[in-house]
């Protein structure tokens, strides 16, 4: 097998990554994110229909015709103790909020559209809803991020060296930033499952990077005094097959999900698919080359 040059052209790849990171940052700052209703809050409509076979997709059909971002609304059936069997209630949540007169207008349109289908309908309540997931991630603040970074840095410094700890953190930040940037650029909804994908990416990125570092550490002991650039490049070649095979297998699972899975899962599968690609790329082209200059034999 031919030796591949990962390190030689490192400046090009670092430049590509910097450009991607810059685009991501700009998009995040200007365009922002399409947050899910669990983060932003918005409105919640409780709709009551006098029918025992009116389904969520029937409701979806009706609300698609309404203004605002009703097309992205989440619809779930709810039921209270003591509700008669021929009554169905649906909770419709969406990120828009409305003034009172618009609320009334929507209410009327909704009731009218359903009664045109021959089913009696009534909007029971039209609430402003808080973003509950925002509260859940509220504690994951800068303090948590700093502690996470410090903990990883300390561990990698202990087992490897400070430089590698820094490299792992840079690769991690690189992966998260670019994946977030792609969420912003594509307009995929950033919902709770998407955040789960981002968190999974943290694990994936670290794991991938450490395996590469481990090989470098081993070779540094074996071939003391060898030119660092060559040594790192050889280490990358040695683990390349593993990196590619692992990435392909993980990608197979998440990409199938992206192709076939339903709408709420799409952002999740998107985050995972992008994450695997970015994570693999960074473990080869970024994690080691970016700290190459400071790597020393101990």
């Amino acid at each position: 097998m031919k030796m591949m040059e990962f390190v030689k052209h490192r400046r090009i790849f670092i430049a590509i990554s910097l450009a991607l990171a810059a685009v991501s940052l700009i998009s995040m700052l200007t365009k922002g994110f399409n947050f899910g209703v669990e983060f932003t809050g918005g409105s919640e409509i409780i709709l009551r229909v006098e029918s025992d076979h009116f389904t969520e997709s029937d409701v979806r059909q009706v609300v698609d015709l309404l203004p605002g971002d009703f097309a992205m609304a989440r619809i779930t059936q709810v039921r209270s103790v003591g509700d008669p069997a021929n009554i169905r209630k649906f909770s419709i949540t969406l990120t828009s909020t409305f003034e009172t007169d618009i609320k009334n207008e929507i209410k009327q349109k909704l009731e009218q559209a359903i009664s045109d289908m021959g089913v009696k309908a009534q909007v029971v309540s039209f609430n402003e809803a808080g973003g509950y997931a925002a509260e859940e991630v509220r504690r994951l603040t800068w303090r948590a991020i700093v502690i996470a970074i410090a903990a990883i840095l300390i561990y990698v410094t202990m087992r490897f060296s400070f430089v590698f700890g820094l490299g792992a953190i840079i690769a991690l930040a690189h992966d998260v930033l670019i994946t977030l940037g792609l969420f912003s650029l594509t307009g995929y909804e950033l919902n709770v499952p998407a955040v789960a994908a981002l968190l999974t990416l943290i694990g994936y990125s670290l794991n991938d990077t450490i395996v590469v570092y481990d090989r470098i550490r081993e070779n540094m002991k074996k071939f003391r005094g060898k030119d660092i650039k060559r040594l790192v490049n050889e280490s990358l070649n040695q683990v390349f097959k593993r990196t590619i095979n692992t990435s392909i297998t993980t990608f197979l699972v998440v990409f199938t999900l992206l192709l076939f899975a339903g709408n709420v899962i799409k952002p999740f599968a998107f985050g995972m698919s992008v994450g695997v690609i970015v994570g693999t790329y960074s473990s080869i082209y970024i994690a080691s080359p970016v700290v190459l200059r400071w790597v020393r034999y101990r």
Partner: protein
Amino acid sequence: MKSDRIRLIVVIAVIFVAFVVLLWPTSEQTYEGFAKIFQRIRLGLDIKGGARLEYRVDVEEGAENPSEVVDDVWTVLRNRLDAAGYTEAIVRKTFRENSSFIVVEIPAATETTRAEKLIGSTGVMYFGQVVDESEVDPSTDPRLRDLAKIKKAEWLPNREGNVWYLVRREIMLIKDLQLVSPSIVSANPVPDTRPGRFGYKVTFEVGSRDAEIFKKITQQLMVPESATGSVTAREKRLAIVLDDVVQFAGYVVSVIPDGKAEITGNFSLEEAKQLAAILRSGALPARLEKISAGWVAPLLGADIVRTSLWAGIVGLILVLIYMIVFYRTFGVITDLALLYNTFLLFGILALSRSILTLPGIAGILLTIGTTVDGNIIIAERIKEEMRMGRSVKAAIAAGFDKSFRTLFDANLTTIIAGLVLYYFGTGTIKSFAITLIIGVLGSFFVNIVFSRLLSDAFSRFIRAPRSVEGGVNQ
């Protein structure tokens, strides 16, 4: 080999326990048909729906910051559900026409009464002053009712409902000397160790925000231990009131300067536990009024879950095939390791009574990734060792030895990130962190023990790679 025999025993014992836990009979009826073997895996709101309760937050008029009160209610309920292991429950606020509501959705609770129990008390807790007591129901006696008016207090029953206490919120009628919904940092039952005493007492700590006012209250109500039971002392007892029931009434025998107090009363362990739980459960800053109780259907809908499940299975089968095509014997070992780890993980999920949601499934996907990855690392390592001229058996031993350190560092770094998520996250993030940590530990075990066992067992099928295939130039 002796060590392989130990591995075999461990591998069989672990999966046996996992299957016993997974297949243990349960009254839950989540699945039908073949999927019944997963009956003990509880499913989250997004996949299965759950109980739904709606409360109106009864914010007192003239409250300084109503939205803060609602936030505090939210935090208390969130903490209660997290403490009960329902990190997957959703607690959210809604508003309409100047009223605030809290909607709680709890997965895996099919009966609303059970859900209400999980939410716990919806009332306000306060420390009050007992000014009198009666063994006659005060509502039947007009003189007792008048007494309440005179004393500016109200009659409240004890827990058994056979004694009524006349309780006043304002201690000694001093203006603003009252402690409603105190912050309690901790409360625990501990054995009473003083000579001549038996049973249990409850120690608790009032948070620093309320410690000063608690000190003033205890200063006012303090009676020396020798004077307890006297007529004047009977008007100076402290009551802990929750849900309009006197949970405890007793004498204050010393001033509490730092919020650290204890309640003695020769309690049984059960009584002490109960009282500690009441103190600890976190007082709500406002009363909750139940609007409705019922159920919510899954957000994802049955059709979405079904397609996603099939997509996942197809992806998994592709991985299994890919591994066999590229790694032959090691591929078979990896596939078996993957199945082993999946059942192990389901066993742990059943044991820990975790609730599986979409984010949890993300954690499982990462586990599949790390299991496959671990095996690939090991397989590549063994191939390398064989290329260097080692025999198959020696290459397996060396390959596992060298991979151990790699996997150890890679997995531990992931676990560190998981621990930070667990500590700082609430709700969904916490449960994701749990799945992540369990999954990574499981895949490490499977890689090191299960795969090693199979590699040794299948060693005669393993062929040394031709040296042209992947010789690395030195």
